[in-house]
């Protein structure tokens, strides 16, 4: 069995999570090759074949050309699987490659399963097993599902070229906005989620943070609704935190949020829904309405 891994580079560097692709290939027990649109500095520490296309020429975001570059590597390598990370690059490019190859695609794979691949559904609350028909099969992998593996060694570089131009013009990156409190240094964080109900209820969260001597964070829906500043957002698109204590108030636990806080020392989640995915990472799950439980907790702690 053979897999073609699609690496990812940004600003001339290999993105670290590309090594999770090797971790997946190793679980599958497959031979590997990688395709990367990047440059020499972005080559992985890997002694196998890397099909390298020059990002200076093809751009770091140019899906029309990138899909054909991946296709060119597929034609040379004839893999059983073409594997991406389930990232803004992977979920954008993988369906285009699948369309070109007329291939089935399984998105956000979290595990190998008998007769197929296991993936999350229903906002991470449930799992499904999906069996692809025919091949090659395109996969994207959920970040963190397969431990990273650095094979080591110097790549055997093969240069990839395609002709033509893309229809999307990439105008550049915009750096993350970092306003407000630096949550990455906080020892205690109390975060508000959608379960808080409305903006007017936020002081209840702030009160708890104050009694505990911590900072206030937020989940994405709270920021999207304009209840709190973007600077307070914890998660993949916000800040990645690891306080000694993290209290998630009414946060269901989208994978993007979990990735930003699951390394916290101790996690308390307060949620009405006993099956909420936040329960997967919580040391203590309090099954309760935030607006009933949090004021009671604050009052008791203040004594």
């Amino acid at each position, binding site marked *: 069995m053979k897999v073609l891994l699609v690496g990812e580079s940004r600003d001339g560097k290999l993105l670290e999570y590309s090594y999770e692709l090797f971790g997946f290939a190793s679980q599958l027990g497959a031979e590997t090759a990688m395709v990367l649109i990047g440059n020499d500095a972005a080559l992985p520490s890997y002694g196998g074949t890397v099909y390298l296309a020059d990002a200076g020429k093809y751009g770091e975001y140019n899906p029309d050309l990138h899909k054909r570059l991946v296709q060119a590597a597929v034609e040379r390598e004839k893999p059983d699987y073409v594997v991406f990370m389930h990232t803004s690059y992977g979920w954008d490019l993988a369906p285009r490659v699948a369309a070109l190859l007329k291939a089935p695609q399984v*998105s956000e794979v979290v595990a190998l399963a008998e007769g197929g691949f296991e993936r999350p559904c229903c906002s991470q609350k449930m799992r499904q097993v999906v069996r692809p028909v025919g091949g090659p099969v395109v996969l994207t992998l959920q970040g963190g599902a397969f431990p990273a593996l650095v094979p080591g060694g110097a790549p055997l570089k093969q240069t990839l070229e395609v002709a033509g131009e893309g*229809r999307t013009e990439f105008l550049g990156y915009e750096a993350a906005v970092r306003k407000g409190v630096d949550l990455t240094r906080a020892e205690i964080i109390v975060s508000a989620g959608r379960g808080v109900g409305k903006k007017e209820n936020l002081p209840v969260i702030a009160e708890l943070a104050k009694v505990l001597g911590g900072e206030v964070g937020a989940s994405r829906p709270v920021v999207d609704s304009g209840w709190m500043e973007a600077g307070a957002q914890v998660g993949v698109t916000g800040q990645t935190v690891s306080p000694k204590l993290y209290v998630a108030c009414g946060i269901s636990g989208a994978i993007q949020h979990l990735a930003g806080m699951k390394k916290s020392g101790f996690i308390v989640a307060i949620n009405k829904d006993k099956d909420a995915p936040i329960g997967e990472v919580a040391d203590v799950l309090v099954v309760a309405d935030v607006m009933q439980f949090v004021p009671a907790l604050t009052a008791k702690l203040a004594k």
Partner: protein
Amino acid sequence: MKILVCVKQVPDMESRFRPDAAGVWYAETDLAFRVNEYDEYAIEQAVLLKEQLGGEPEITLLSVGPDRVVEAIKKGLAMGADRAVHVRDPAAHLKDPFQIASIIAAYAKGEGFDVIFTGMQSLDRGSTQVGVAVAEALGYPCATTVVAFEYADGTVTVKRELEGGVKGTVRLKTPALVTCQLGLNQPRYPTLPNIMKAKKKEVAVIPVEQLLQEEARLVLAQFSAPAKKGGGVVLEGEVADQVDRLIGILKDKTAVLR
């Protein structure tokens, strides 16, 4: 200008999900359905574009699914879409993302849509494939995970949300498709007069057989709850009791309570 918005109806995610009789997807009994959250941003962006252009564009809303999806269609019409297409498919949940995209593309082909909006994913299936696959089938350029959208003179300029809070700015010429990320705009609540008006708008019904020509590339084999990994403590019962037990645990297991 002609605008298409693709909308899916999904269950409330706070529901308890149970496998259906075949054991491959959720049973619909006891579930409350609503418009997929990502698609609400898609509808809103279409309506904002129509308003920007002085009301000239016509917005068509499309939804694939059983009869219940008419409720989602009504909401979209009340938010400001002009007309709707209901591709009636009682077994839409068994179609794979590629087939759903093929159905949408088969409808859109020849309709000459200038801009197509979809959500970046659905809350239930979450494949993140359908929007891109529609664009590929139609030969439209496409940008995904969009958190800012501008239109001027046949050019769409968007910001894509990348990891770590970084954004990437991308420009496309219409016809184009964009997939909408949460936070792109503030989806409006339909007003009562607009809900009344929506009742008079056209909803064309097309049986799925007329549009589906592709075989499935994925087979659903199993649907289940994830195996519980963590050995976390679950506190249920009376609030006062929960508070005492939590404080006890925090004193025991952490050094944060003095």
